[in-house]
């Protein structure tokens, strides 16, 4: 694998001090001759015992675990308010799981919260409500208390057994006002006593959950705000366990979206959640890049702080977002401008040549020049086509001026091209995987190595892929870093990593010679360790920089002090 990045021939190799810890005596020219015994067969660096500076503390939670957390909150509220768990759950959902606010508001005016949450009927005025209206839906025969204050207690006092059997009545005369099916015999209603047949309820809830992805099921009656509680929903859905499961998933999603330190795994059909309290606030995102992996699969890598669902270390979210936006907006245009236009050497207007001869006249300043050499036309006389005045001082100056005016565009494209190149190379690693697999099989045949022993190839490909992702993002970071010593140090790290990655890349693509296979193995293994180390230095150093507030940007970045 090759890159268009040119490694300078500069002899002064720069390594920062972390480098000294390494036992590999790495040098550009003699890389192939190193005898390495320090690491043997092991990839020692790969074993991570404690958290690195660039890693973030998080836990992955499965759906049942989240449900358990929800249940704790529900039980807590249920205990404090003396209401049924299902009621407590609905109250919490209504207040977006903000327990403190719920408690505060509930203590202030229990009834208004309960009405707004759809667990209690709005007070009727001016006559006191008939006994049925203010009682819970669970029991119309239970002890009635007439004051509204005690409604919550009514809800609590209903025996548990009744909770799971919502009002199901046998009625010959009543016809469901939705389906008008007079053969329906089973009816259900919420505490508002709007009666509908069981099959309509089921249809309705299924439609809400399945097509609208809605977990708040309001009564079907017009303008009725009463919400169906979980036991009712489960009962109404009956044997449709699939919809019930979906309903529970929606509840979990609603909960997760309300809690700042939780985030749902964005990968399709994944139900895991990641909890990352240290990255829960916006201000924390300027000191860290919270890349997390959910427990379902180690390929489910995403950023906790922003919607980018890949590892964008070492760049913080705000800068990553700016860069991606810039790439979307500018890359095509910038490339087009670069390849199709030139600037007038006098007034710097951008000019596209869409036909005709090379004798150009700037529309704006009327400057006449040669499109080929950018020099003034007056020096060309009639022999323009040979452009024999190429080395003429004037045209050289003109080209210099052109170069200068293109500097910012060139600068952007410099970073963008390297960014895009690493991305492309990383994409090609899928191909490399299959190639490597073949190679590994080949090795088993041509040498005495076992399958386990040829794993080093696969490992190397993995490392190359990961480091290319890091490199890719370092170019986004470098584009926005303000120039200065810090940026130079950053770029040195970047260069060392890049060089190492390219060399490893080359090694794993090289043809296999049975004679030298052991040497190759040794070399790849050593290089892999080295690359990994360089990657860590890169990430570690940037992470440290964030914590120290060392990085200064050349633009204003959200959350940072202005540049």
């Amino acid at each position, binding site marked *: 694998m090759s890159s268009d990045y040119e490694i300078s021939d500069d002899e002064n190799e720069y390594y920062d001090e972390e480098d000294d810890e390494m036992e590999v005596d790495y040098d550009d020219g003699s890389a192939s001759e190193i005898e390495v015994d320090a690491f043997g067969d092991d990839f020692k660096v790969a074993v991570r015992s404690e958290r690195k500076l660039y890693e973030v503390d998080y836990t992955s939670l499965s759906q049942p675990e989240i449900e358990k957390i929800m249940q704790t909150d529900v039980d807590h509220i249920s205990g404090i308010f003396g209401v049924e768990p299902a009621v407590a759950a609905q109250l919490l959902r209504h207040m977006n799981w903000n327990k403190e606010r719920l408690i505060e508001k509930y203590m202030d005016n229990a009834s208004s919260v309960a009405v707004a949450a759809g667990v209690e009927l709005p007070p009727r005025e001016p006559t006191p409500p008939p006994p049925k209206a203010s009682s819970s839906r669970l029991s119309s025969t239970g002890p009635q208390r007439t004051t509204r204050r005690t409604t919550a207690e009514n809800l609590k006092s209903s025996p548990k057994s009744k909770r799971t059997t919502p009002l199901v009545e046998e009625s010959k005369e009543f016809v469901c*006002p*939705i*389906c*008008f*099916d007079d053969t329906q015999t089973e009816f259900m209603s919420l505490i508002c006593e709007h009666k509908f047949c069981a099959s309509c309820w089921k249809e*309705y809830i299924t*439609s*809400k959950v399945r097509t609208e992805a809605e977990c708040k099921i309001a009564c*079907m*009656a017009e303008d009725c705000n009463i919400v169906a509680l979980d036991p009712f929903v489960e009962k109404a859905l009956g044997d449709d366990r699939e919809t019930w499961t979906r309903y529970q998933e929606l509840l979990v999603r609603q909960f997760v979206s309300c809690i700042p330190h939780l985030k749902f795994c964005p990968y399709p059909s994944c139900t895991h959640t990641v909890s990352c309290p240290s990255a829960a606030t916006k201000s924390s995102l300027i000191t860290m890049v919270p890349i997390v992996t959910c427990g379902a699969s180690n390929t489910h890598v995403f950023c906790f702080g922003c919607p980018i669902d890949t590892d964008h270390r070492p760049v913080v979210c705000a800068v990553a977002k700016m860069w991606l936006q810039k790439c979307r907006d500018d890359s095509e245009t910038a490339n087009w401008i670069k390849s199709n236009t030139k600037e007038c050497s006098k007034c710097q207007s951008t000019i596209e040549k869409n036909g005709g001869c090379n004798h150009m006249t700037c529309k704006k300043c009327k400057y006449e020049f040669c499109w080929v050499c950018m020099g003034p036309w007056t020096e060309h006389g009639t022999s323009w086509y040979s452009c024999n005045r190429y080395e003429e001082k004037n045209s050289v100056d003109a080209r210099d001026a052109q170069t200068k005016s293109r500097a910012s565009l060139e600068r952007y494209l410099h970073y963008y091209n390297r960014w895009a190149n690493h991305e492309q190379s990383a994409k090609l690693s899928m191909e490399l995987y299959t190639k490597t697999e073949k190679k590994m099989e080949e090795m088993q045949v041509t040498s005495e190595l076992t399958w386990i022993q040829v794993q080093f190839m696969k490992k190397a490909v993995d490392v190359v892929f990961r480091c290319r992702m890091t490199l890719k993002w370092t170019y986004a970071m470098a584009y926005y870093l303000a120039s200065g010593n810090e940026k130079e140090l950053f770029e040195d790290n970047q260069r060392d990593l890049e060089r190492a990655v390219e060399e490893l890349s080359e090694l794993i693509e090289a043809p296999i010679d049975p004679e030298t296979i052991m040497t190759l193995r040794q070399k790849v293994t050593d290089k892999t360790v080295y690359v990994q180390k360089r990657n860590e230095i890169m990430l570690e150093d940037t992470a440290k920089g964030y914590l120290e507030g060392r990085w200064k940007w050349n633009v204003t970045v959200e959350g940072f002090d202005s540049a």
Partner: protein
Amino acid sequence: MDARLRRVNKEIADCKSDKSSRVTIDLVDDNPFHLIGAFDGPEDTPYEGGRFQVDIVIPDNYPFQPVKMKFITKVYHPNISSASGAICLDILKDAWSPVLTLKSTLISLQSLLCSPEPRDPQDAEVAKHYMTSKSSFEKTARYWTMIYAGGPGEDGAGRPGKDAAKDEIAMAGLDRAHVAQFEALGFDRSKVIDVLRRMNYRGANVANINDDRVVEELLK
């Protein structure tokens, strides 16, 4: 029998038996899920005397999803698109409830005609007209009712049968004098109407649209 079909049949039958509301629902062809509803324009509104037709499509999981309705009859109303007949009404979207029926929804449309909500418009031009000059808006709405919904129109002015150009002006909700003023400058009448309507021109001193700007627009 399919629950949806039973429900729709019942609704159509109910509507037929109820003569007092003057709301009708008819089949377009043999398909009971594509219907045409009709109701009278409410009294004491510019829509009085008109008969308004509504295209009704019953979705697959009706009544758990709202019906799709749009006006077939052209209506001049802030919450109804003057071009497509699309309706902006909450019960046709998230405030839908399965207990609502075709008839009750049509009656809601009728009451929408009584109480326009220009701050949440479907047709921005009409809404602007309504906000700038309610009387002028009502005049146009009445004219539309007369032309499209068979309403009586205003006594004297603008009865159908007069020349087509006059109708065009009234249709756009414009003042004849304004159109004539710019026509006199040598612009094509239909262009004048188009520009004035687009700019929502209600005279030079309303909404700071001076004559120069209109001419500028006309010259484009």
